């Protein structure tokens, strides 16, 4: 289980973007975090993945303390983080991009070969485009490429920050399908999304943040039956 407890964090001394937030992510579930702009969703992801050191609070991954651990060590622990911005290497080919996903086990040639074959099987489109420059792919395909690259390490958990922002609905759907498919394969997923309906639709458990604090949380069924009441404060539906 990934557990962030009582996180307080911010980019400057005086201002705390997160003012005591706690989130638990259970294995083999999709946990969605939603909330209005500025509620601290992305900051929470950055804290969990080591890009921002919390001022207080603790991040645990099973029995390992992740608090303040450097961000580049996350891949080695089986944590795959997909931030909101694009992270492909635009001038490298699709295959070179995916190949770099095996950085943490780069000495193991056999494993690289096997994982590459497996990832191509999971994402046949990537195999088709493997010679293309990553920068030439469409936005949605770049997002899929990021996921594919992340899958090289056979992560235990995928942390996705707004994977569909800026994508056309039909392509966004493809991304959500991919996430659900990965969950079905046994992956644990922490998803941050602006797209409330989709986040609730695919999430097993949902957290709502507001101005850096936990607002409400509950299972999908609770949200589905009671959505309007639970989030009416900030959602004008």
């Amino acid at each position, binding site marked *: 289980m990934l557990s962030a407890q009582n996180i307080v964090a911010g980019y400057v001394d005086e201002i705390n973007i997160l003012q005591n937030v706690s989130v638990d992510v259970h294995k083999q579930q999709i946990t969605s975090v939603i909330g209005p702009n500025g509620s601290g969703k992305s900051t929470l992801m950055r804290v969990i993945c080591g890009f921002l050191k919390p001022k207080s609070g603790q991040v645990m991954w099973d029995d390992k303390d992740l608090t303040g651990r450097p961000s580049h060590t996350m*891949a080695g622990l089986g944590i795959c983080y997909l931030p909101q*911005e*694009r992270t492909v*290497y635009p001038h490298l080919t699709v295959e070179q991009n995916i*190949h*770099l996903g095996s*950085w*943490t086990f780069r000495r193991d040639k056999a494993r690289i070969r096997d994982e590459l074959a497996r990832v191509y099987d999971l994402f046949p489109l990537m195999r088709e485009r493997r010679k293309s420059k990553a920068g030439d792919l469409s936005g949605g395909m770049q997002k899929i490429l990021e996921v594919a690259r992340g899958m090289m*390490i056979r992560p235990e958990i995928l942390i996705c920050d707004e994977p569909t922002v800026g994508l056309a609905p039909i392509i966004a759907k493809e991304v959500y399908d991919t996430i659900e498919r990965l969950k079905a394969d046994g992956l644990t997923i922490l998803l941050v999304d602006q797209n409330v309906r989709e986040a609730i639709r695919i999430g097993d458990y949902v957290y709502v943040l507001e101005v850096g604090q936990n607002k409400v949380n509950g299972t999908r069924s609770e949200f589905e039956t009671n959505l309007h009441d639970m989030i009416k404060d900030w959602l004008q539906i």
Partner: protein
Amino acid sequence: MDYYVLSQIVNGLIFGFIYALIALGLTVVFSIMRVVNFSHGEFYMLGGYALYALTAGVVTVFGIPLSIPTILGLPLAMVGVAVFGMLVERGLLRPVYTARMDRPEEYAIILTFGLSLFLQYGALTAVGPYEMTPGAFWEGSKHVIGDLYLAGDRLFAAGISAVLIGATLYFIYGTWTGRALMATAQNRVGSTIVGINTVRMNITAMVLAGLLAGGAGALLAPVFLVYPDVGQIPVIKAFVIIVLGGMGSIPGAVVAALILGLVESLGSVYVSVAYRDVFAFLVLIGVLLFRPHGLFGQQERRA
């Protein structure tokens, strides 16, 4: 084509390899750290002085004058400057990048500019203004082609430059660390999330720059002397080369350096030697008119 023209072309290409060696380190540091290292010319200077200090017998350690063979002095000078590059990264540049300030690149540029002046005046104070020549790598002048004789040292410098450039290209394109460098240059966050320690990549870039610039300085010191501001003109040429080749493009830098060597050599005999150092800029303007991102440059694609 007569021997005269051929001689000029050969001399131009030889100079091109030397330019490439100087430009490579600059372009690597720029592409990884986004810092234009204004002290790169002084890395070059330090390489020359290091070779001189190690080989000329003027520096004594425990009462024994240091006068090791130049051929051994070269790798030592390279390593020495590489270590210096590492210290610059650790002591000057990293604090800027970790201080979480706006536009760290601009602070870093000012820092390297200050470092450049500091090192020049430091050299002036420490060893004086006079030109020095370390011992030769390859004594005497050698027949090259037609009427062309060139110093063994110059040929040696070009040959070793070609080897070092080849080694650098292999390192960048053929090794994991090299690929990680490229990845870091193209997307830092994307590199971190696959597990690449980008701070280590910064160090690697500075070490590589130190090796290459220090190597160039040491290789060229017997041919072109060493003195406090010896690095100023080469580094300006290197700036032209990396813009010409496309900012951050490594093959671009090599090709641009060879072009520049040729243009300078031919231009100074067929146009006018008085404008030798202007040709670089003319070529640059000409290329940028048609290819604004340089010969091998790619438009930034950032989300």
